């Protein structure tokens, strides 16, 4: 473990944890496994998305039961892939500052794969098509479309995956506490509130990792509670929990988990943009304040999913609206703004790595706009559950989260080294992906502005053109992601750690 020393009232950390060569080799293999696993699932889920858009565009015909099974696997697959790949990114950087266990990292990965097999079985063998949000009491009331067993295996699969993540977060918490003594110190709060001098070298990754660990631990715990209640209801129908309570727990869990993936992956931007620009990403009081606010906002903002549930307390919906706006401020003022400053007149060499990382900042910042607007109660009344909603989260995920993960993958491959020439296929992949992702998101937003509902297997004639343009856009996304994934499959396994 690295030592700490007190000099002039300031805590100084020697920032790097020492591991043996075999530990480092094993860790790198594990990170690559997370990335390759995540990318393959993302690619398959994009094909699922393309299929759904083609069906809505009347270019492909499948039964409604299969459509909703594909919709279910698309939702749960993207959330799962985002979870596992972003964990790979965060863990890779966090272990450089706090001692983390390779074994536990692998255990979570194996538990995750076990859960994936259960979920795939429940959907494609059991016919479960109750959407990834398993909104109570739908899993128990399928009108004979899927069995109780299929619904149970789906929810058990999620429970198993959540348990794996909880074990991993316990290890992260242990590592952070062993190094920094308290979570507040790891978050930089002792510096923010003047108990310690500001240390500009305090790792941004530690701050982000601590935030992710805290919120995801609570989010997954809430998810476990609602999944267990759902499972009891499946086999004991007399046990009927309150539908609104269940909805609150589900959206708390779902919102926190998917949001945490972007906060975990942004560590790639904090760590890598400085390397490619030669400029430091210094932490300071504004940075700590922003991340401290995020801890609470990510957890308290979820009522914006429940604005059309009128019996919700008025104060909760106002909190949801206000914090939705508030959640946009850290990215618009701190992280996105910081990325702009660090790149501006830096002489950065644009490679696929740096282009993707910078794109991720754009996607995150711009994706905030439709999200904030939809989170206004008065706007939500005519946008909720239209395609506006997938519009904003596809913007976040396709143009924010995934470029962070793809960019990190290219970095690990070693593509961004100074002097390297850009490969034509990587360029093709980047621009196909960029144009496709932009089009996909914007067509969803335009569809939402035209009132087209989300999660409809068959679209009315008036809506079909939107779906057809969306299909072309999705095909471009698949092309870009296919090139990225092939590149990862070919180059990543033998790539040395670029550190």
């Amino acid at each position, binding site marked *: 473990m690295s030592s700490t020393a007190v000099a002039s009232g300031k805590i100084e950390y020697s920032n790097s944890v020492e591991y043996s060569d075999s530990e480092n080799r094993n860790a790198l293999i594990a990170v690559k496994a997370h990335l390759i696993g995540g990318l393959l699932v993302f690619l398959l889920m994009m094909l699922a998305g393309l299929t759904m858009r083609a069906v809505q565009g009347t270019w492909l015909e499948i039964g409604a039961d299969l459509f909703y099974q594909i919709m279910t696997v698309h939702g749960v697959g993207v959330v799962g892939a985002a979870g596992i790949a972003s964990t790979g990114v965060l863990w890779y950087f966090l272990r450089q500052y706090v001692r983390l266990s390779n074994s536990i990292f692998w255990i979570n990965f194996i538990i995750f794969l076990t859960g994936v097999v259960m979920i795939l079985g429940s959907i494609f063998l059991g016919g479960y098509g109750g959407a990834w949000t398993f909104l109570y009491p739908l899993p128990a*009331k399928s009108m004979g*479309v899927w069995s109780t067993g299929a619904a149970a295996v789906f929810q058990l699969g999620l429970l198993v995956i959540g348990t794996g993540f909880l074990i991993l977060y316990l290890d992260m918490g242990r590592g952070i506490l062993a190094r920094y003594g308290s979570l507040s110190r790891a978050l930089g709060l002792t510096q923010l509130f003047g108990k310690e001098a500001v240390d500009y070298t305090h790792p941004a990754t530690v701050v982000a990792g601590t935030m992710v660990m805290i919120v995801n631990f609570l989010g997954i715990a809430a998810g476990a509670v609602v999944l267990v209640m759902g499972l009891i209801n499946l086999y004991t129908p007399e046990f009927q929990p309150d539908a609104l309570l269940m909805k609150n727990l589900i959206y708390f869990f779902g919102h926190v988990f998917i949001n945490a993936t972007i906060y975990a992956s942004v560590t790639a931007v904090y760590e890598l943009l400085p390397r490619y620009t030669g400029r430091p990403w210094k932490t300071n009081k504004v940075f700590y304040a922003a991340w401290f606010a995020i801890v609470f906002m990510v957890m308290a903002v979820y009522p914006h999913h429940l604005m059309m549930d009128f019996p919700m307390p008025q104060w909760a919906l106002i909190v949801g*609206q206000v914090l939705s706006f508030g959640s*946009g401020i850290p990215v618009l*003022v701190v992280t996105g703004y910081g990325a702009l400053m660090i790149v501006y*007149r830096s002489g950065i060499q644009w490679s696929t790595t740096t282009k993707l990382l910078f794109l991720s900042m754009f996607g995150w910042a711009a994706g905030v706009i439709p999200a904030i607007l939809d989170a206004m109660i008065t706007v939500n009344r*005519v946008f909720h559950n239209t395609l506006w909603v997938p519009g904003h989260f596809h913007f976040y995920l396709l143009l924010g989260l995934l470029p962070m993960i793809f960019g990190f993958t290219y970095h690990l491959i070693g593509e961004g080294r100074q002097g390297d020439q850009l490969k034509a296929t990587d360029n093709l992949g980047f621009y196909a992906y960029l144009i496709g992702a932009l089009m996909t998101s914007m067509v969803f937003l335009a569809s939402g502005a035209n*009132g087209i*509902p989300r999660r409809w297997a068959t679209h009315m004639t008036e809506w079909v053109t939107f779906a057809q343009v969306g299909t072309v856009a999705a095909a471009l996304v698949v092309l870009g992601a296919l090139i990225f994934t092939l590149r990862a499959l070919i180059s990543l396994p033998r790539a040395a750690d670029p550190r």
Partner: protein
Amino acid sequence: MVSTVYAVTLVCMGLIVAVFYFVIVNSKKVEADYPSITKKWYGVRSKWFLFLLTLGIAVSFVSTNPFPIPDQKKDYPENDHQVVKVGAYQWYWTIAPNTVDAGKPVAFLVTGEDVNHGFGIYDENLNLVGQTQAMPGYTNKFLHTFDKPGKYKILCLEYCGLAHHAMITELTVK
């Protein structure tokens, strides 16, 4: 409302594109003195933060006063409102009565009889004019005054299983 929100989204996104484009165009020229860049742009950032904060407070206050959701504890009696009882089932609607008058407030009392559904009202041009959730165990009170007569469509806006997309009925406004 919808077109305004859409226009605001496109304008704000366009501004963000412009800022990122400006930085990309100015990324190759090297300015070695990074501290002077941060000093200058941290100053701008403070003003940017204050602008966003003020905007957020103003928009939040204006858009929640009066609160846009009707008081759920209040009764909406028949002499002041046209009361319509809505039941949502897998996969059909019961709406009683299914004809209302334009220009007079309608109080929809909406409940889910099995799972969660979404009660969405669309006009003849398929514009979404309003919605509420239909939840088991709850009755959502949703108020709306129709400006124009016509045949309105009721669509399900919360995924409720196999025939979710077929859960369509009509409401006549005279």
